[in-house]
């Protein structure tokens, strides 16, 4: 009896203990392939893993060091994200990419204390763009406030530079993620004279009937969508149900994937979404991916997401990470870098048009430089539109720059508030 119980306890104890460390460059990926957010989590995770598989297979890793992606399932749940962080922390990870604004908020103080960088590409805490306060947090190349501003700038372009008196509605995920753009949109409304109305949608977002009823009554000129997971497809369906003109319905880059529009069918035709990165498979890199990853069947997941918007997004995240590793190796002259060295690599990252072309992804993302003060990048984006007949996303604008004057002031204000609350001394002076 006693002996059996001891064995059980020993087994439980062993099962609770985190696995041991190995000598490779470890990149944790806090994935979510289950639950209501898996339509977003699966393709992004596949793209991230496949790009790094390619780097390992084709180049033998970065600087001769193989890269190991450690996936940990969070289900988009914050407490699970923390558990994943603690579990993978022992393996000397270089950088965390949580793909969840809630988990990013959670990890910012913890990872900073542990001296591990967090890269929240196009999500997370926008104030982290201020490198003087957030030493270990990066959100280049663009953040939510850039996104909000790009959407407004796009409306300005459509209306010959004036959206005075227009009505804009924001349908958002009622969480830190969805609330992020509100402040910026309010500031911009003062500048451009539009009126803003807010429609929060509670997680997971399958219940939006009442919000869209209100929208039908209020007849806004434009609707912005800040949704994720199953919420996106539901919102587009509801918009189609009230016959809202799709070309006036603009989603953030997390609300513009194939998984969001395909379930709606023909009625989603004309829906617009912002984009951070190039679409489709028409890049030289895809030839290499086919040769080294797809044909030998080394791809992540079931391969169905290859070439989709979010797959490319995940790939872009992996690319920026790999380039930051290269930079860190260059700065410190060692190939087996630590997370602290990785931070230096991220802070000195320079991406040019030539870099992107050299990596086989010409014009895939913007050229930018990260500096000590600016961890947020240039915030450039495009507007793409869904063609439901051809089933593809097409870019309909050139690069759109955000209103950095408004955003920088907001970032400075938000980061100052955080610095004061947490008692952080400013860097880069």
């Amino acid at each position, binding site marked *: 009896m006693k002996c059996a119980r001891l064995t059980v306890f020993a087994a439980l104890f062993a099962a*609770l203990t985190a696995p041991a460390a190995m000598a490779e460059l470890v990149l944790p990926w806090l994935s979510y392939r289950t639950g209501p957010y898996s339509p977003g989590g699966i393709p992004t995770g596949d793209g991230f893993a496949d790009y790094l598989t390619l780097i390992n297979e084709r180049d033998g890793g970065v600087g001769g060091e193989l890269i190991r992606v450690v996936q940990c399932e969070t289900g988009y749940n914050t407490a699970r994200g923390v558990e994943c962080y603690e579990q993978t922390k022992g393996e000397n990870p270089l950088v965390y990419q949580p793909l969840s*604004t809630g988990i990013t908020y959670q990890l910012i103080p913890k990872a*900073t*204390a542990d001296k591990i960088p967090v890269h929240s590409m196009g999500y997370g805490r926008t104030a982290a763009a201020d490198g003087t306060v957030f030493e270990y947090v990066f959100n280049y190349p663009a953040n939510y406030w850039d996104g909000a501003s790009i959407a407004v700038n796009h409306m300005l372009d459509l209306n010959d530079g004036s959206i005075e008196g227009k009505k804009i509605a924001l349908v958002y995920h009622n969480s*830190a993620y969805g609330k*992020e753009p509100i402040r910026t949109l309010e500031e911009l409304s003062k500048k451009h004279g539009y009126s803003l109305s807010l429609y929060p949608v509670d997680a997971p977002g399958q219940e939006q009937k009442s919000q869209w009823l209100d929208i039908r009554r209020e007849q806004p000129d434009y609707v912005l969508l800040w949704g994720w997971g199953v919420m996106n497809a539901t919102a587009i369906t509801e918009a189609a149900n009230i016959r809202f003109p799709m070309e006036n319905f603009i989603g953030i880059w997390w609300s513009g994937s194939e998984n969001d529009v395909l379930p709606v069918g023909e009625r989603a035709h004309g829906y617009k979404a912002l984009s951070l990165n190039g679409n489709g498979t028409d890049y030289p890199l895809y030839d290499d991916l086919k040769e080294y990853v797809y044909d030998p069947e080394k791809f992540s997941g079931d391969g169905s997401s290859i070439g989709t918007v979010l797959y490319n997004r995940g790939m872009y995240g992996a690319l920026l990470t790999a380039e930051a590793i290269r930079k860190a190796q260059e700065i410190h002259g060692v190939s087996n870098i630590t997370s602290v060295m990785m931070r230096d690599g991220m802070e000195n990252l320079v991406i040019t048009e030539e870099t992107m072309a050299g990596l086989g992804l010409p014009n895939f993302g913007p050229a930018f430089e990260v500096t000590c003060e600016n961890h947020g990048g240039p915030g450039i984006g495009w507007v793409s539109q869904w063609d439901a007949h051809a089933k593809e996303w097409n870019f309909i604008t050139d690069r759109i720059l955000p209103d950095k004057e408004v955003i920088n002031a907001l970032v400075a204000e938000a980061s100052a508030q955080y610095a004061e609350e*947490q008692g952080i001394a400013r860097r880069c002076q």
Partner: protein
Amino acid sequence: MFYREVGDYKTTYADDSQTFPIRFDRLRYFFVLFVAIAIVPLWIDDYWSNAVLVPFLVWSVAAIGLNILTGYCGQISLGTGGFMAVGAFACYKLMTQFPELNIVFCILASGIVTSAVGIVFGLPSLRIKGFYLAVATLAAQFFLVWLFNKVPWFYNYSFSGQITAPERTVFGLPVTGPNVEPWAQYLICLAFVFVLAWGARNLTRGALGRKWMAIRDMDIAAEIIGVDPLRAKLSAFAISSFYVGVAGALYFAVYLGAVEATEAFGINQSFLVLFMIIIGGLGSIFGALIGAAFMVLMPIVLKNILTGGLNWEPSLATHVEFMLVGCLIMVFLIAEPHGISQLWNIAKQKLRLWPFPH
């Protein structure tokens, strides 16, 4: 053999009415305490603290709280998540408005605030019972979470509605914020669990606990023998909410460090705590602890076995884990509808007679 009373003579009333009257049981209790206080902090690391022990301790407090209300007083509540949110936001407001105030007092004060809110939402219990009361407390759940999401004052007008715990110290050691040592974080939670569990155990053995149980077993009979239902029910709501509020404050300040009302304190958390006490055993402090352990640790154990030990895909492992946890809940409830604590009691009875069962 074990758990034997033979030769254990009680010569004083104090001896006779102690919590653990059997010597072996008492020694085991002191042994567990000794391991928890003196041994565990020596080897605890970030993973064990943040992912395993601290969540277990925090949920234990919430489970004890709900067990007082549901297990002892018989009032079903689905508002646990909302009450935890009250504790968390009260703690955040106190921490940021009064930076000099010691975190221990912040957490206790959050409990008191929550108990006031609990009394208000407990008032309907005087008129309605059972499922109807469950629905009334469900309203509390949705209202409170909505309130903390809607009114910016509660989250100090931050852009995102997230609240982040600043660093606070006890005896000069940080217990909240990112620079906390794992053992300090563990010990502060353990201290709260120990004191609160000890308090709950003694409350439920005393006059108040007997009144609660009288109300639970038959409220009309209890009223006839002189139990005031108003006092009994509202005291159960107040004390239960105090515990739940403290749990919410610990959950926010010590465990997660940053939360948002909708995700951290949703209806799922209310159900989680309810499952804990049902699986652990209604009307038992040990049941609350073992139920919390079961619900918190079982998913982590399964996840580590499936992904770490068997090297499964994380997504497949998660799906299997959901199914296994569900199956285990059913198995335990079919094997023993009164919860794991009842299994423990049966085991103790058997051990008392072992090896001569007759």
